[in-house]
């Protein structure tokens, strides 16, 4: 019977292996730290989210086409909606006249756009918005012009991610 001598790794082999492994760990550590640093520094990029873009584009059009010197009603839908930082009520021009449009940001992860045409309500809903998307609507004052809308959104860490001024345009 041939007896095979069993031996472990030499010190050199172990050192080389550990050195390679250590280098890998170091690179991973540095890259992870760099990514964490960036995450902490920048807000979530909501502008890459299709639903957010859709909401912003549609709302921009409603505000830019606002009708009259004060297009912001106090309420709409027989008092169902009231103007607030989470609800924008605006009279806007559409192809067949003027409609009252309500932008409702009160439901988490959803944005509702309700338009009233001769008492008939039509609703468009954007679903699947980012869970940490916290929108706010404010007024912007430019002397000599109708109030504009300042739309802001913060991410889950409270960082300001969207800040857009929308100003009604002049119409004949």
């Amino acid at each position, binding site marked *: 019977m041939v007896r095979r001598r069993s031996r472990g790794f030499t010190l050199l082999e172990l050192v080389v292996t550990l050195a390679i492994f250590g280098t890998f760990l170091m690179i991973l550590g540095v890259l992870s730290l760099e990514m964490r640093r960036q995450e902490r520094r*920048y*807000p979530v990029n909501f502008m890459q989210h299709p639903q957010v873009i859709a909401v912003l584009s549609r709302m921009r059009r409603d505000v830019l086409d606002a009708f009259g010197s004060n297009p912001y009603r106090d309420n709409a839908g027989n008092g169902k909606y009231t103007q607030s930082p989470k609800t924008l009520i605006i009279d806007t021009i559409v192809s067949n006249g003027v409609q009252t449009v309500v932008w409702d940001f009160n439901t988490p992860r959803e944005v509702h756009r309700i338009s009233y045409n001769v008492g008939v309500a039509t609703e468009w809903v954007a679903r699947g918005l980012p869970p940490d998307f916290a929108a706010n609507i404010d007024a912007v004052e430019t002397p*000599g012009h109708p109030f504009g809308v300042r739309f802001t959104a913060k991410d889950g860490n409270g960082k300001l991610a969207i800040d857009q001024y929308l100003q009604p345009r002049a119409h004949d």
Partner: protein
Amino acid sequence: MRQRGFSLVELLFALLILTLVITTTLAVFIERNRRLQQASELILAYQVLANEVELQRRVPFADVLPMGSFTTSTDLLRPLQPYSTSIDVTATSPGVKTVTMMIKWRNGKKQAKLAIMRVDTGGGNLW
């Protein structure tokens, strides 16, 4: 049977392949990070520029003047600190002004600008 390990050439070749794979992966990862950061910065910068445009297009023509900073909020630019904003106005022809809004960050190495043309309509400025 004679037991022997890898030859030096085999070992060097294996190390070369390993190094190439690691270097390429790292380069791709770093470049991706750099571009993501760049995109984040530009998205923030252009939102602020667009907001200032909204204001500058409504200022009465005579009041369109160069300024050392923006009038609208620059809170979005906080991650880009230190940064600077400025408005440059050039009278290109009588009754016409080119208004250029600029944001600089990373000690001026990065910049984003947006220009509009204002025309003196004579009467009250348009909305």
